[in-house]
Structure formats: C-alpha cells, structure tokens
C-alpha cells in the first residue's frame, strides 16, 4: 500500500510538471506540446500491440484516422455551412461524438483484428497494412461521403456542455493542452491498470511464450483480439483529440505517414514501457523542430538521427535511460559502500 502511494505521488508530481510546461511559453511551443500529448496517446495505443502483445501491426493509422473522421463527419453543423462541401449537418455535440468515434474504432479494431490475428510476425503487419490501405483508398475515393482528398473542413471547436456546469470551450492550443493532458493521464492510468490486471499478465505471458501460455490454458486469440480492440479504441481517442484540435482532417490522418510516426515514436521511446512512447512522441515532435536551424536539411538530419539512435539504443531511449540511471545509482551505492567501510 505504501509503495502504491509512493508510485501515485510520482505520477502526481510528473503530471504537475507536465501541467506547468506550457505556462509562459508562446503559442508555438504550446502547440507543439499539445501535438505531443495527442500523438503520445496514439503512440501508447500502438505500444499495446507492439510492446505488450509483441505483435506487428502496420495498420494502426486506420484507427487514428477513423476516430478523427467520425468526429469530422458527425460534428459538422450549420456553423460550418459554406466551409465544407459535404452535405452533412448532423451537428452532434462532443458528448455524443466521443462515444461514437470510440465505438467506430472499437468495431473496426474488432473486425480487422478478428480477421487478421490468425497471422503472426510480419504477415500480421502486412495484412493489417492491407486493411488500412483499403480504408485510406475508400476515404479518398468516396468523396461524396468523406470529402475526398481535401478532407473535412470546418469542424466546430471542442465545446462541452453538461447540465449544471459552465460550458467548456477549448479553442486555443493552451486550453486544449490541458484537455489532452487529462486524456493522456487517463490513458496512462488505464494502460498501467490493464498491464497489472490478470488480462495484462496473460498478455505478457503470451508475448514471452505463446505456445506455453496456450498450453496453460490462455486463449491466445481471445486475449489478442481483446487487446487489439482496446488499442484501436485508444487510437480512436487520439484521433478524436487530433480532429478537435486541428479542426480539420484529411486522408493523411489514416495514410501511411501516420504508420511511420507510430513506429518511430514507439520504438525510439522504448517498446513495452509506459512512458517510452510519451518520450518518443516528444522526440518525434520536437527533434524536427530543433533541426529547423536548417530547414532544407531537417528531414535528412532526422532520418540520420533515427538510424543512429536505433543502432546505439536498439531498445529505445527510455529503457536505456533507466539502465543508465541504474548504473549511476549502483556506482554511487558502491562508492558509498566503500566509503562506509573506510570510515569503519
């Protein structure tokens, strides 16, 4: 119990520091931080598949985009008239679009997972990629329904009205940052509870040795499908935040570039860790910005940086930091021990 409290305290401290980050910064940095948090949720959801399940999925971007598109299509209303070529004007409020987008992603995740989770390894990755590409193609081509390549424009700002409470309107990166922070904290809490549950332990057992876990009576397919659906739903949550934040969504959001970003964030940060993907998202957003000192070379440098990091820290940055810290602490303890002996 005591240990749990200490843990909780750390997270509270971390959240407090995170909450203090955008204070006093200009909107540009606030925007980057907000983007980081949204992408961190997305990376965490991808980490469930890659890190905790130990499987490949190259189709995760589809769920991110589906979440975003659901918002886009359901929230358009009279206010967006003239700004969108779509004939839709459903004008659903936030409390309705949120469950809708999560539900769409959960169903999509369940269906795609059900079909493709019989595969393993690279094959699973490519079959999910196939599904994602099909969804992407349909989004581009069925423009009477999706807005085509120009995307959905004129998504109303995030506005939550609950009875008895003042209306919550988030129209600036600064205010959206705290909303995204709440979502991120929820996601981290949810995943940490999940991994500590019986379900999470079963997943880890499956990751370590699927045959043995299956022999012990773990229904691999059922667990994988469940986890895949959860990951898809969380990706939808990230897409939800993304869509309301930028207030505009294009097929890029479910295209292959968002697969690359997920892969980069999770692997650079550290697969199978709770905070690795968050660090990965930070790096993914901020490092290309740091390279803005040379606008034309920034992606060249970013590509090179990716290679270098993965060669020297193939486990990702977060686990390497932990082990570095380990060594540091150990050495200090050793030194202390020696000093202690000398003083005796």
């Amino acid at each position, binding site marked *: 119990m005591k240990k749990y409290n200490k843990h909780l305290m750390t997270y509270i401290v971390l959240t407090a520091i995170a909450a203090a980050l955008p204070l006093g910064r200009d909107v540009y940095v606030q925007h980057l931080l907000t983007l980081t948090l949204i992408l961190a949720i997305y990376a965490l959801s991808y980490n469930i598949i890659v890190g905790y399940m130990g499987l490949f999925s190259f189709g995760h971007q589809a769920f991110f985009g589906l979440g975003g598109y659901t918002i886009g299509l359901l929230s358009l209303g009279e206010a967006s008239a003239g700004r969108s070529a779509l004939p839709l004007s459903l004008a659903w409020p936030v409390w309705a679009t949120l469950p809708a987008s999560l539900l769409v992603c959960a169903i999509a995740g369940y269906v795609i997972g059900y079909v493709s989770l019989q595969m393993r390894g*690279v094959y699973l990755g490519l079959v999910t990629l196939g599904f994602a590409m099909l969804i992407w193609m349909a989004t581009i081509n069925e423009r009477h329904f999706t807005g085509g390549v120009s995307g959905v424009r004129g998504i109303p700002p995030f506005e939550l009205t609950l009875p008895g409470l003042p209306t919550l309107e988030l129209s600036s990166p600064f205010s959206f940052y705290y909303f995204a922070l709440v979502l991120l904290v929820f996601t981290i809490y949810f995943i940490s509870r999940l991994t500590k549950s019986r379900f999470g332990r079963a997943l880890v057992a499956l990751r370590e040795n699927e045959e043995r876990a299956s022999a012990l009576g773990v229904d691999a397919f059922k667990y994988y499908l469940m986890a895949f659906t959860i990951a898809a739903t969380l990706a939808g949550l990230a897409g939800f935040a993304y869509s309301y934040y930028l207030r505009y969504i294009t097929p890029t959001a479910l295209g292959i570039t968002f697969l690359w970003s997920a892969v980069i964030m999770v*692997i650079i940060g550290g697969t199978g860790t709770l905070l690795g993907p968050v660090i990965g998202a930070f790096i993914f957003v901020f490092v290309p910005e740091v390279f803005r000192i040379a606008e034309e070379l920034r992606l060249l440098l970013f590509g090179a940086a*990716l290679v270098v990091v993965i060669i020297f820290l193939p486990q990702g940055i977060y686990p390497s930091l932990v082990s570095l810290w380990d060594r540091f602490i150990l050495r200090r303890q050793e030194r202390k021990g020696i000093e202690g002996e000398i003083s005796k």
Partner: protein
Amino acid sequence: MDWALFAQQVFYGLSNGMAYALFAIGLVVIFGILGIINVAHGEFYMMGAMIFSWLVAIQGVNLVVAAVIALAVGVIIGILSNRLVVQPIYGKPSFVLATFLATLGLSIFLANLATVVWGAFPINVTTPFSLVVRPGGIAIAGDRIVLFVIGGAVLWLLMQWMSKSLLGKQLQAAAQDAVSARLVGINLMRVYAIGFGLASVLAVVSGILMAPIWTSNPYMGPLVILKGFIVTIVAGMGNFRGAIIVGLLLGLVEAIFGQYVAVQYREAVGYGVMILVLLFKPEGLFRR
C-alpha cells in the same frame, strides 16, 4: 469488346508487372535471408534511377557507362547500409522491429539526401530505344521492350545463379535455416552482406530500367515499396519464381481492373489479394 485496347492493357499491365517483379525480387532476397522488411529498398531503387538519369540526361554520359556507375554506387550503398545500419543491430532483441525503424530512418535520409544533391525536380531520360511502334493499333514503346528483355535476362541469370552456384546455394541455405547454415560453415555475416549487395544491385537495375519509362525523382521509392510488399507476401517468403509470376500478375490485374471495373480502386486489388492470400494460404501462392 475492343480487342486492341484489351491487348494494349495487357501489354501495359505486363510491363508494369515486370517492373514490380524486378523491384520486388530484391525485397524477397532480403526478406528471405534475414526475415526483415527493408523499407529503404525503394530508396535503393530511387538512387539507381536518379544516378543513371542524372548522368545521362544532365551530364551527357554514355548509357552503359552511366548504368555501370549507377550499379557500382548501388552496390556500395547496399553494402554500407548493411554494414552500418543492419549489422550493428543484428541479433539484438526485437531485431525485426528495430531494423524496420532503422531502414525507415535510412529511407528518409536517402530521399532527402537525393533532394539535397539533385533537387526534387523529376529527371527525364530518353534512350535510343525511346520510340513507339503501333502494330494493329497497339502502342509498343521501345523502352518497355528493353525492360522486358534486360529485366527478363537479369531475372533468369539470378535464378540460374541462385540454383547453380555455390554462393547462390549458400544464400538459399541461409534463408532456409540460419543455424544449420552456420553449422556447415557458411559465414552468415558474409552471406548477409552479399544478399544486401545483391538486393541493392537488383533495386538499381530496376531503377535504371524504369527511369526512361517513369522519370525519376527522389520520392519515387515509396510509390513502389508497397507493391514490393504485396509481391513478396503473395508469392511466399523467399520464393523467387513465385515473385516473378506474382509481380507480372499484379501489374496485369491492376491494368485490367482499372480498364473494366473501377479505375479508382485498381490499387485496392493488390491489397485485397494480399489479405486473402495471407488468410487462406499464408505460406504464399507458390510454395516450392
């Protein structure tokens, strides 16, 4: 039914398919031997096409000389990539995922490097074969015939080399069972280096052959890499003959589907087939 148009589509489909096959075969080599997906394969292909086009169209170098230089640079890039990017992480845990990211980083790097060196403007090459004949109303372009002839020859040589030469057999052996390959005394690291070199040569060859047909720019790699994935998977891992057949079929099916069914979904056919094959025949269509 307009038969001339049908024949035209078959011709275009097959020549596109030849390009897919030629490109994919290098992916098949790497995927077969190392079990990894080389995302940067498209950029090897791009480097081949760009170096060749730049030398021929901008510098006025002789075709053959340009091709040789492009091949040489391609081999160097392939071997260096293997040495500097893949080998350092070989055998580490999560090797497959790590190489996926490392080669992704490499592909970003190479595409942007090419932009810095040559600019992103497309380079167009005309060769002495860039002419068109129209037997029976079907447009047959000389460059496509060259693609068929040289591409076919390269694929045939590759198959012969793979099945006849000791080195080719070593490559196959490493693909089939890495541990016993080491136990019979095969130097795995050397085989991997050769495999990577070979794959990049094949990518460069396909780049050179495609340059006069498709024009070259630094971002042409990602356009074909997904086709390569489809071919690799549908054919079955490490299956060369299958990859050639599937590549040709993919081009053909896309052209015919685009002509007679729905042109905007022609790309979907490949993915649909890939999904179905993986679900019902996961070892690939052409199991040897």
